[in-house]
């Protein structure tokens, strides 16, 4: 039994909370979780559903409020203004100082703004945290048009949210096609069509030049790169996020874009760790990025750091990449490595349903025929089976002939494996 330590976790998102829960499973350490955002952990991925009326805030809390007390996880609502590494303490905005034995920083991201004129006007915002939801709620009441900037996951979520309130939306996407730095051309086009079928004014190859203000300091229009002025009363900026680390200035903790961490998720201080969106791996694994701001990696990092802190030194090894999203009515799942443009030595098989809303892509190596990745749109694939195929380098022929094993669609759905002809 190791001695009891005081572990402070900054951030109550999925990364920090997973760490807290797993440290509690493994030890009796004192755990304090600090958040400036909300009193309790909630699922930030569900922000859109609160706005659309699918759920209320209370439904997005994965644990009932008594859970934290029962498990002796102290929750503290405060903003950490400073980390003082020389005295192993943190300073809160209230002036209170707390000392730690181990510190876990899981402060997530902040939305990007690229210095546009008018980016700080009222009615202009990103969508990342609970406060963003509140301001979006307040600033979209009774408006006539909204503009969303940025063709990625948050952008399309904001479009869907606004549509649910019958607000007409113009969607500015800088690239030639939706999310085409991640999605191959065909999949990207499925989503372009789907966005337009929802009567969204989708403008591809169009960027934002500036946001115009009315006399009260509220957004009244955007000016596009082509010089067109589009009247609107709300502007959603969904042009990516960056690590939320400004409070670490002068702390001595080494940062680049994010907080630099080794394979144990440890910073340059051996008792300080960083997890989730705000962490930047010094040496990312092959085919992985240094910063991966997704739910799943935050969760895995939390599990990993808990093991290390509780005496079981563990390297962060997130295995085979996977992700998922939902583009309005079309579900998307991906397993392994499917890039927007095939890499050298790769080939792919692609099938799309006649109605153009379902598809499967299987990427494999030309030489060995081993599969390396799957993309599925409007079809549910079984994670375990796809992962196993990728891990063992199963040949594409075998995968195609046994595709049925990966079918995770509900009962009575048309068996896609019979339809799929590559």
């Amino acid at each position, binding site marked *: 039994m190791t001695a009891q330590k005081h572990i402070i976790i900054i951030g109550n998102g999925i990364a920090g909370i997973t760490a807290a829960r797993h440290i509690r499973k493994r030890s009796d350490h004192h755990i304090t979780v600090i958040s400036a955002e909300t009193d309790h952990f909630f699922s930030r991925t569900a922000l859109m559903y609160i706005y659309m*009326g699918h759920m209320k805030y209370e439904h997005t809390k994965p644990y009932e409020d008594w859970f934290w007390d029962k498990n002796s996880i102290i929750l503290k609502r405060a903003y950490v203004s400073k980390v003082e590494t020389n005295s192993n303490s943190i300073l809160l905005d209230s002036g209170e100082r707390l000392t730690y034995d181990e510190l876990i920083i899981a402060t997530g991201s902040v939305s990007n703004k690229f210095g546009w004129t008018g980016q700080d006007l009222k009615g202009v915002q990103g969508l990342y945290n609970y406060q963003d939801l*509140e301001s979006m709620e307040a600033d979209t009441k009774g408006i006539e048009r909204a503009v969303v900037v940025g063709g990625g996951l948050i952008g399309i979520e904001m479009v869907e949210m606004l549509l*649910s309130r019958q607000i007409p939306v113009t969607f500015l996407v800088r690239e030639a096609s939706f999310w085409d730095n991640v999605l191959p051309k065909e999949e990207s086009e499925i989503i372009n069509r789907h966005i337009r079928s929802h009567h969204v004014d989708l403008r591809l190859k169009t960027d934002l030049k500036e946001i115009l203000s009315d006399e009260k300091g509220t957004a009244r229009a955007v000016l596009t790169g082509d010089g067109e002025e589009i009247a609107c009363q709300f502007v959603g900026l969904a042009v990516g996020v960056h690590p939320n680390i400004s409070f670490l200035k002068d702390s001595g903790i080494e940062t680049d874009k994010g907080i630099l961490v080794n394979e144990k998720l440890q910073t340059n201080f051996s008792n300080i760790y960083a997890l989730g969106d705000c962490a930047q791996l010094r040496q990312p694994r092959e085919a992985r990025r240094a910063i991966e701001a997704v739910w*799943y990696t935050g*969760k895995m990092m939390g*599990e990993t750091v808990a093991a290390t802190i509780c005496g079981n030194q563990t390297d962060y090894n997130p295995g085979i990449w996977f992700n998922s999203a939902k583009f309005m*009515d079309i579900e998307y799942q991906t397993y392994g490595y499917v890039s927007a443009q095939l890499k050298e030595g790769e080939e792919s098989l692609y099938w799309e349903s006649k109605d153009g809303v379902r598809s499967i892509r299987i990427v494999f190596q030309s030489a060995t025929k081993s599969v390396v990745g799957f993309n599925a749109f409007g079809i549910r694939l079984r994670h375990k089976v796809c992962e196993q195929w990728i891990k063992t380098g199963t040949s594409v022929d075998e995968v195609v002939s046994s595709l049925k094993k990966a079918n995770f669609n509900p009962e009575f*759905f048309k068996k896609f494996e019979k339809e799929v002809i590559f």
Partner: protein
Amino acid sequence: MSREGFSISLASPYAPGMDGIQKFGIALFVVALLFTVIGLFGPAANDPELFFYLGFIGSVVGLSIYTVRTYLNRPAGVQNNHIFTSSLTNRGLWGWALGIFLTGFYVALYWGSDEMWNGSPLVLLFNPLSQGLFNHPPDRWFLYSFIYTVSILIMGVRAILKYRHSNYQIVRTCSIMFFQLGFAFLIPQFLKSMSQPEYYFSYFWPLDYARLFPSTVDGMLSGGTIGIWMLIISAILTFIATPILTYFFGKRWYCSWVCGCGGLANTAGDPFRQLSDKSIKAWKIERWMIHSVLVFITVLTILLWVNSFLEGGIFGSISHALTKVYAFLIGQAFAGVVGVGFYPLLGTRVWCRFGCPMAAYLGLLQKYFSRFRITTNGGQCISCGNCSTYCEMGIDVQAYAQRGENIVRASCVGCGICSTVCPRGVLNLENGSTHTDRENANPITFGNDGIGLRKGI
């Protein structure tokens, strides 16, 4: 946020406006309903045909037109916008009003006097239908049966349109409508019209609690060949078919494919499914209550048989008093008044979850001896909470999904909505090849290869 609390607006302030066809449907509904209500003050008793066809049928048609148009106006996909911003579906003023109205109706239905009902314009309204189809005059139970069936049919069409992106929901809803119309309405009414026992093939002991009481059995035995066959079928359904079907498919084969209580919940009650209590406390209460009811009806049935063999002996007065208590408390107050009356307040499956002895029996079979489970797709859960929110049985589905753990719960009726509303394709209802491989506690996220706790694929 300012959207909490009472609102006098029926729909959410954010819902889309109506087009011409929807407006026509609503107008027809309102006018026909008003016409019916006027009829109920007296005129309907004199001219039931007029008020039945123009009034009742008119309002049903109007409501159907509105509903069909509303859902066809939207693209196929999850249709849960505005549920928690609308007064009717979020325990607002309209929700309470509907709850009070339904509760009042059930109180009058069960405990109103025969004088009050017989000859009342409301019952007489259904004279043309009852006489025309079944050749017997309507009573309050005919009225109830008919409205119940019509509710399942109209709201069944709505459910099919609402969930039309899911074939599971389409097939399942068709099954519910079929069993209600055929087995819980037409067949019993025809049997009655042929002077046979009004027999419901889709209900059996312990839900139809009196089915295996000595008095019922005696009645059937004296009813000749048909009566004997009905008795045999009843016993087979309870003791043989139920365990076998539940082993292969889970309790859903009954609770969300056949049963009329479940059928009403999944059609007319669908707008209220999100109101069930998801807390662990509610789960504890549920387990105590539902199993107590099962014990109660089992002991009572045994007592009645012992009493019957002893010819009234020692248990005579006790067992008859207990029968009355059960009929009043469980059969009427719980199953009817609270079970349906409280839809807009407590959600749709209050009876199924906390009270139904059949659900308790099926649940025990499902929990310990069934191939059915809801599987979760590796590590894909994002803990968004949609599955738990829309679980009518109050199961915290997400608690399992985020651990990558199969859901094996006695209460799960297999309605499949968790899977239907999941935005990431995580949940799936599956019948495995055995019942022994269902529990798969998985503390570490699937795919996190750094930690060696993973079990085999």
